[in-house]
């Protein structure tokens, strides 16, 4: 039977942990960025938009290398993090989460922004006249209406984070048990002379996890859409 080896279980757990943390960071920041892009008008907006979307078009290695330069012990942000919080994210699973999060961020922003732009601001105005403060308008009207976009963004971000390779290996290297997520473990096996079977098993695991996420999101979004129609 298909019993998972400790090596595989470790990689799966690490991958879920990394993708989960990346998602946790992307959700609030993505919501904020999407809100700013969809609702605010300011000088330099297209520059911000471009900056947020950079990871989508840059080679992942570039992003990984920039992260390494910034967050390495000698990097500007890295040194500051180390001196103030005694935290270093380079070569740790947290760094892997940061890399995955940054690579997936544009997907989150795009999904939320799209659904935010579809929300009729007239409905929000109507809620104001019914006594809702801007905070309550967001909670009771806007948030439920962008739920499909949030869900799509969540799935895309999660899947992209699970699959993140280039930026991760450049930034945090391929350390078993620390930064060796599924794709990195797969990469190691493909480099080993007798790794074919192990690699194939990881491929199957990756496909199953991604497929499960997609099917779950499809079912959820159908339920949400039924509620909204």
């Amino acid at each position: 039977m298909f019993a998972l080896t400790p090596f595989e279980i470790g990689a799966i757990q690490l991958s879920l942990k990394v993708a989960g943390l990346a998602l946790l960071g992307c959700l609030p920041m993505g919501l904020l960025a999407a809100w700013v892009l969809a609702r605010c008008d300011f000088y330099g907006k297209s520059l911000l938009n471009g900056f947020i979307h950079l990871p989508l078009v840059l080679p992942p290695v570039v992003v990984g290398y920039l992260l390494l330069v910034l967050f390495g012990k000698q990097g500007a942000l890295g040194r500051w993090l180390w001196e103030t919080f005694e935290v270093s994210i380079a070569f740790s699973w947290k760094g892997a989460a940061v890399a995955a999060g940054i690579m997936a961020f544009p997907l989150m922003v795009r999904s939320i922004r799209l659904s935010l732009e579809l929300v009729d601001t007239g409905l929000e105005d109507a809620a104001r006249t019914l006594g809702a403060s801007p905070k309550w308008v967001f909670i009771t009207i806007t948030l439920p209406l962008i739920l499909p976009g949030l869900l799509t963004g969540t799935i895309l971000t999660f899947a992209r984070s699970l699959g993140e390779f280039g930026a991760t290996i450049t930034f945090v290297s391929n350390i078993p048990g620390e930064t060796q997520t599924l794709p990195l473990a797969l990469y190691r096996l493909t480099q080993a002379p007798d790794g074919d079977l192990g690699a194939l098993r990881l491929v199957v695991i990756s496909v199953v996890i991604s497929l499960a996420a997609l099917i779950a999101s499809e079912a959820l979004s159908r339920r949400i859409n039924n509620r909204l129609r």
Partner: protein
Amino acid sequence: MQKKLYINIDIKRKKDDFMLSAKIQTKGGLTAFFGRSGSGKTTLIDLISGLDTPDSGTITIGDQVLFDSESRINVAPEKRNIGYVFQEGRLFPHLNVKSNLLYARRFINTALDPVMFKTIINLLGLEHLLNRRPSTLSGGEKQRVAIGRALLAEPQLLLMDEPLASLDSERKAEILPFIENLRDHLKTPILYVSHAIDEVIRLADIMVLLDHGSVIAQGEVEDLMSRLDLRPLTGRYEAGAVLSVQITAHDTEYGLTELSFSDHKLMIPHIDLPIGAHLRMRIRARDVSLSTSKPIQTSILNVFEAKIIEISPDGSSQSEILLDMGAPLIARITRKSVVELNMKVGDTIYAMVKAAAIDRHSLGLGGTHVRQTN
């Protein structure tokens, strides 16, 4: 008794190359803001609701200042306690009808009076819709829910922005009685935006005439409708004098109804309302013809002796003549007739109103153009 809640508006608002400058005072009942599209009606009630902010001026309701540019007061829309019924309903798609209706209640500290809930549900005929989704409602049903939702916030003032504009004439006829009900049975004053003069005549007590961002005239509907100088705005072909009348008799043999107003009687085709009912009706200028001598043999049932008050300025092939017969009446006749019959201001003349011209469908509304005013 209607609570007299005075509403004072004196504001300016510039939007691109459009300038709204309005000074309006009204109270209780239903006040209609009437004007063509682009005249600033919607901008005006957006400013009152707080969804838009005036550049300068004041807005007060009763003794509550909602906006004052001098003392930098600008009450947030959610704190103004003003209900707003939008043209397109704007029901929340993720909530069912009942949750839509009760949306405002979560922001109100006092519990909802179940009697009030029942009254509003019954008034608007919403009982059977409570568990439905907004997407499954017809246009008319959506508007009724939107009205109910605004009312259940217990607003001190209700704004309605062309609530009938997106509906076909059948749906309009369905909603109009509900709005009449609100006007007659609720204490809440209503500001009603419309570009349809028939709605204004049927619903409004006070009318504010807007054009290109300015208030051209404001006052009682009957007074404004009988002013010839406002005719270009109140509508050349559809408008006419507005009379408040009472049903005094039904003639079953000929299928007629007798109406009376200031010592006159008027026969119109039968309408299905009880004797004693008060109505407001419009007599279109084109349905009134004039004669310098008393007509003796004529098919026209309604002949009134009247005095010429005003003859509209020459220029076109037709003239409008304002008559006084104890109540105002407007006639439109050709300018040729004015000259040939030698009509002058102050002359006594006989006005003939064709009974058949006054029927339920003469406004193209699908309903009646007369209304109950009690």
